[in-house]
């Protein structure tokens, strides 16, 4: 089932183009949103999450049009959103805060709501801190609390903007488990810089760069973009798009390999670098020509 259908989305901040002709489709499952800093990922997530109206294009979320008040309300009733920089009331306890968000999600039956709040707090591993004031929580705990607030009410569309920031490795693994479970039944849009999260969680991936969609496909297809363009050697290659020394002592390169190079299997990161690096290089060449 198509959960989100975006066609030609555009947004400008004054003279700056944040998004231009963004078209993509989200279905049940986890879709990763990748892109360099400033690519427009957060802007796009905010538009899909109804926090920001687009200047142009059409957006349908479960068939609803968020540009109209009734459509927006309908979307919000189906939505869980974890912003990049979530906010809290520091004097609330963890339970009170999620309970408050649950009320704002129209969960009005007290007992049911409390059960639901307890469920999501347990799901994010904050069971034992439910009575703690938010000001006493660590950064990672606050991030998990924000995730709980996003998940309360069992939304059909979950939008997560860099949710693993501040999580330790164990919490990140548990987070993957949680999102993977969720992705079996719901539509999850996950913005992240962690390519391993994308590889392990996402069925689909969208790459955004300078406000435009550069790629839409599976993680394997994204990795495939670098097929034949990743090689290793003993020394650094000046002509490569990217070149770094790995733990084995060999240098790994992405770019146009020299003849006879020892090609290796590309990763999603290589595909991403090939895509974004080539675009950046093309842009730099175009800029130089001007």
């Amino acid at each position: 089932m198509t959960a989100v259908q975006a066609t030609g989305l555009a947004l400008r901040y004054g003279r700056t183009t944040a998004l231009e002709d963004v078209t993509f489709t989200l279905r049940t499952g986890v879709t990763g949103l990748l892109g360099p800093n400033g690519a427009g990922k957060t802007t796009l997530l905010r538009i899909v999450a109804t926090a920001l109206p687009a200047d142009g294009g059409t957006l349908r979320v479960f068939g609803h049009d968020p540009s109209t008040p009734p459509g927006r309300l309908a979307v919000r009733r189906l939505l869980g959103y974890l912003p990049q920089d979530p906010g809290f009331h520091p004097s609330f306890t963890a339970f009170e805060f999620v309970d408050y968000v649950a009320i704002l999600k129209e969960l009005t039956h007290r007992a049911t709501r409390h059960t639901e709040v307890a469920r999501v707090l347990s799901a994010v591993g904050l069971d034992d801190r439910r009575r703690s004031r938010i000001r006493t929580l660590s950064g990672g705990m606050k991030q998990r609390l924000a995730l709980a607030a996003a998940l309360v009410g069992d939304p059909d569309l979950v939008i997560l903007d860099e949710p693993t920031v501040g999580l330790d490795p164990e919490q990140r693994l548990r987070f993957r488990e949680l999102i993977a479970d969720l992705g079996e039944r719901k539509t999850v849009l996950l913005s992240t810089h962690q390519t391993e999260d994308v590889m392990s969680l996402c069925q689909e991936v969208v790459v955004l760069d300078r406000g435009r969609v550069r790629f839409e496909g599976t993680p394997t297809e994204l990795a495939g973009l670098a097929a034949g363009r990743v090689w290793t050697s003993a020394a650094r290659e000046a002509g490569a798009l990217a070149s770094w020394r790995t733990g084995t002592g060999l240098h790994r390169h992405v770019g146009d390999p020299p003849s006879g190079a020892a090609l290796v299997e590309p990763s999603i990161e290589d595909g991403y670098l090939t895509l974004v690096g080539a675009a950046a290089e093309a842009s730099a060449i175009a800029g130089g020509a001007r």
Partner: protein
Amino acid sequence: MTATMTVAAPARPTPSSTQGRRRALLALARFESIRMLRHPLTVAAALLFLAPWLWGWLSGSANRYPVLPDELITIQLLALPILGGSALIVANLVTLRAHRHKVDASYDVLVLPPAWRVGGFLLALLPLAGLSLLLAGVPVGDSAALPGAAGSVDIATLLTPSALTLLLGAVGVLAGVLIRSVLIAPLVVLLVLVLEFLVITPLIIETGWRFLLPVYVSEFTVPVPAGVSDRPAARHLAYLIGITVLLAAAVLARANARRQVVAAGLVVGLILAVGGGLTQSRPDPGLAAARVTVEERAASIQSCEIRGDVTYCFFEGFGGFVPGWDAVVTSVRAVVPASAASSGPPLAVRQRASLDAITAAGWTGSIAEDRRVVAGWKVEDAAAGTPEAVRVDTSWGDDRAAAALAAEVAYRLMAAKAYDGGNFLCGAPAALLVWLVGQASPTTLAGMRSLDETSFGALSFSDISSRYGILVPDRAAAPALELLRRADEVAPLVERHWVELTAPETPLERFGAIFGVPIQPLAPDDEALPCVA
């Protein structure tokens, strides 16, 4: 990411040294000052500060005869809440920025320690003070350029808005380092206004303590000639700067600055604040004598200018008013019969300042005292070769002042002598005087109507600044105001019946009979009025 990307050599902070820190401090101050100057509140406050001047300029209602020392006082009174208040709030917001944006933890580990950072905030106030000087200079410069401007611009007074900006800006920084709430700054602004204008001023206006206020409030409600005001502007400025330095020392102490720096600030601040504060209220032995001279022997210090057959005498710096006075005198003489226009001794107009009775605390004299002073002036006028001189005030430029002068001139032409002050003008002469003032020019008519609106029981040809203005009971003013609509038929009758109408004994009823206007019956209160003989 491209292979062609070149990376510049990383910039490293200069190893910590006093010189390096000073440079960093100045760079920080420059950065913060630009942000303060560009802050929307600063811009809005600047526009608001200039709004009255702009309004006067655009609407044409600006006074073309400003008295510069008084303009400067008004500008200070505006500068305190608007420029000072905005500096306080903006400085407070800048000081609290790190806390508000939750970056204080990362700032705390930077090379430049907190004391130097707040030092940067304090230094950043200097350009803001410069802006205040510029803003104060615009209306003052505009006024000073007018040909009708009186008095001179005192530099220390002109600098006071800048000092107020620094002082309240320092309060803002201090509030920011003491209390981490953006509520405090606006509340402090309100409290400063309460203390300045509502609590302290009314309590201490008559005492030397008033000099300790941020804004000096004049003890006179009227412009006064040079040398009469006891305002020690330079010492007051030093006092304000001293308080600012003390506040800065408190800020630095709170931020754990070096003891020597704080101590130096305290010493300098105390010297300036205590020295300036105490010496500014020290009695000036020459002041009392200067005031007596201004009030009782004005002719000895005045200059005179002759226009046609009229002599105009004025205090130093007030010569710009003469063309305005002359226009009113000419307009009144134009509506009296030719024979009356030059009746009595040669016409003279002398500027007078009555200092002891009109203070910010209100009118403190009495009618008897009033008449005694006016009698003294008459003697002085005679001795100065300008007998029966018409008196004119130290403020000029609005319709009301023009009407007051027109009434004095009309009386002088009707009675061939100057008004004695104190009593009411009654009977037909009173009604005639009102008609003459209304007929003289649109300005005098407008001024008279304005005076009438604020007078009760009698039309008082006296601005609040003047205590010797002519008083005409409403019963006498009403028929004359009625006649103003029929100028064409009234003027010939005025000329024909001039002698009868100007005779003090001619009753108001006769005025009514001549012009065919109804006269109200005499009320019991009217009978008790003391009339000019």
